[in-house]
């Protein structure tokens, strides 16, 4: 199921917002956690340093003075802290907190069997006074003797000495440990706060996004409503361009489509009106001829003449209706097409025969050039109709004493048939219009009503149906030229784009 645009936008922006907020929250939490841990470690190190400063050496003896009243945290209890002090390079415990009991604190940064002396000398910093740490504090998480999670720090520090002898400074190793419960609790609170704030921010931003998406997509809904309001009986309606910039191309294309629809509808209406008009004229001729003939008693010869006239009109109407039906079938794609070998020379000769007498009567000079002998396959009946229409057009519109020329040429991929007639009344601009339905250069029907403007359009549609093309050109007072291009067959069948 396809998601709606609104849902996509909402999911996309809400998802992105959630990712950003959650990422920011995680980052912020990490920063806070790092800072708090650093502060905790610093406090550990400071306390350890303080403890180291309480150690004195006098005459080779270490003394550690710790008043429980001043540091009650080192007495056994619920929130006890722990420390243990060793001389450097000695595993003997120098001092330990009472809270430790029988437990021993580890030395952070050193393995279980190693001593602090194993810490490389280069990591030691010069110590200048008692309690000064001359190694970087090392930290470590551990389980405290009372079972709580804790963290310890181990430092090496110089101690105060009472001896006035010049000798190497004395150092001690101090490990101080305390519970991290407070730190963990603070981090937990911060974590919860950040989670809830992030969730709230996500929900709030989603709500705001919903409103803004709805508002943002409102023009789309209005556009849809405007489109649905379009009525088929008002094809000249156009859509207003008062839309956001992003929808302007849609409206423009919609209006362009409406324009094409209107043109097509007008064309259909015009075509229907033209068909009715063109059929009315021969019907009027039939009716007038019959009514006048029947208005009084006449000789048999007179009746015969009138009946012949009516038959002629009926034949013309039949041809017109046939052309219209053919056009209709072409438009709907229902005109079958046969494939048979075509001898173009013979076909053209056959199509020309019915017009020989008329051409002679009009004293037309008829010439035939070219020898299109290349055989090809096509629908002979449809081609016959094409050339009959073209010859009829040429002979009837050629001026008396003028000419009709037929020219055929063959190329590897096509055969061209060109028909020229003199006496054209069409200008160069009007020539392409001769291929439009019912269009005539002159508005009359000079030749007994045959030429209602369907011959050339039908020839064009038939040629296109057969995979060919037709072009016309004209000069007013000069020559009217029709050029038909028929595509050849390939060895295996019809050449593109003849196949449709």
């Amino acid at each position, binding site marked *: 199921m396809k998601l709606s645009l609104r849902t996509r936008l909402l999911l996309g922006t809400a998802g992105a917002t959630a990712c950003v907020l959650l990422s920011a929250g995680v980052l912020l939490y990490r920063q806070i956690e790092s800072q708090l841990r650093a502060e905790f470690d610093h406090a550990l190190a400071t306390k350890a340093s303080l403890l180291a400063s309480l150690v004195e050496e006098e005459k080779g003896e270490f003394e550690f003075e710790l008043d429980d009243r001043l540091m009650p945290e080192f007495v056994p209890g619920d929130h006890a802290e722990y420390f243990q002090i060793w001389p450097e390079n000695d595993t003997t415990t120098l001092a330990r907190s009472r809270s430790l009991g029988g437990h021993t604190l580890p030395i952070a940064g050193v393995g279980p069997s190693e001593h602090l002396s194993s810490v490389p000398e280069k990591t030691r910093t010069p110590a200048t006074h008692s309690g000064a740490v001359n190694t970087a504090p090392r930290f470590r998480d551990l389980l405290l003797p009372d079972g709580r999670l804790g963290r310890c720090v181990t430092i090496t520090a110089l101690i105060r000495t009472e001896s006035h002898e010049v000798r190497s400074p004395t150092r001690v190793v101090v490990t101080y440990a305390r519970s991290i419960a407070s730190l963990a609790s603070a981090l937990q609170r911060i974590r919860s706060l950040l989670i809830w704030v992030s969730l709230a921010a996500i929900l709030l931003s989603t709500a705001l996004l919903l409103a803004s998406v709805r508002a943002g997509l409102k023009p789309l809904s209005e556009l849809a409503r405007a489109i649905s309001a379009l009525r088929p009986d008002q094809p000249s309606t156009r859509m207003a361009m008062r839309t956001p910039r992003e929808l302007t191309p849609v409206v423009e294309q919609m209006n362009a489509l409406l324009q094409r629809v209107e043109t097509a509808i007008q064309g259909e209406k015009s075509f229907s*009106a033209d068909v*009715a*008009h*063109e059929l*009315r*004229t*021969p*019907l*009027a*001729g*039939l*009716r*007038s*001829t019959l*009514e*006048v*003939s029947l*208005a*009084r008693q006449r000789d048999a010869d007179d009746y015969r003449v009138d009946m012949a*006239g009516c038959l*002629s*009109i009926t034949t013309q109407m039949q041809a017109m209706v046939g052309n219209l039906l053919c056009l209709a079938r072409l438009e709907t794609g229902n005109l079958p097409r046969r494939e048979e070998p075509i001898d173009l020379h013979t076909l053209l000769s056959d199509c020309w025969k019915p017009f020989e007498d008329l051409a002679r009567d009009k004293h037309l000079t008829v010439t035939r050039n070219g020898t299109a002998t290349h055989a090809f396959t096509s629908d002979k009946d449809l081609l016959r109709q094409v050339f009959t229409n073209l010859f009829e057009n040429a002979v009837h519109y050629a001026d008396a004493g003028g000419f009709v020329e037929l020219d055929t040429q063959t190329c590897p991929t096509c055969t061209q048939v060109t028909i020229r007639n003199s006496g054209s009344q069409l200008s160069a601009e009007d020539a392409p219009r001769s291929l439009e339905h019912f269009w005539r250069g*002159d*508005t*009359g*029907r*000079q030749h*007994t*009503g045959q030429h209602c403007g369907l011959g050339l359009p039908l020839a064009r549609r038939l040629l296109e149906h057969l995979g060919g093309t037709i072009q016309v050109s004209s000069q007013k007072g000069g020559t009217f030229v029709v050029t038909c291009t028929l595509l050849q067959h390939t060895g295996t069948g019809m050449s593109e784009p003849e196949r449709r």
Partner: protein
Amino acid sequence: MRVLLVEDYAPMRNALARGLTEAGYAVDASSDGEEGLWYARSAPYDVIVLDLMLPRLDGLTILRTLRKEGCDTHVIILTARDAVEDRVNGLNAGADDYLVKPFSFEELLARIQVLVRRKYHHKDPVLCIADLQIDTIRKQVHRGRQPIDLTAREYALLEYLARRAGEPVSRTEIWEHVYDFHDSAQSNVVDVYIGYLRRKIERPDAPRLIHTRRGQGYILEARP
């Protein structure tokens, strides 16, 4: 009565021309607009039957041109377009009537008769001069109760004189309204046909109806 028919569709033109001629009209027929306009300017037709879709010059243009030139000849438009807009355009251009193809020839005849009566200010299709009755619909003539049998040309001449009853009608006017272009122009043809009419219409026991006014032509009227 003289009628100009401008219609390019040959079967219709031929049928209408024959029918109108047989109905007693002198008919001039043209197949294109320019020739039709020339005809219309050349003679005083009683009615012009004008198709709209003509080659070289369309019917509406012919009509507008004639009206602009002050021609008040009655015009019936023939066309296959029956849209209201087309009818309105034709009537607004100066047409007196409009017929949509295909139409009944009888209807065309009747409408032409209407326009002829209108031209000569006669409402009644039966013209009466003294005891002479001319039924212009049935083309029947009676003097008193006696029917008079006239040829088509004689009837056309009598009808024209009757429509202009009381007015002197010159030979030229008779020629222009009763004879078409294709008739050979002979100045005594009118006199000959007047003679034929007199022989058939005049009665020794009834007042003379057809009078000659020297230098002016002929008058159809009852004189004591």
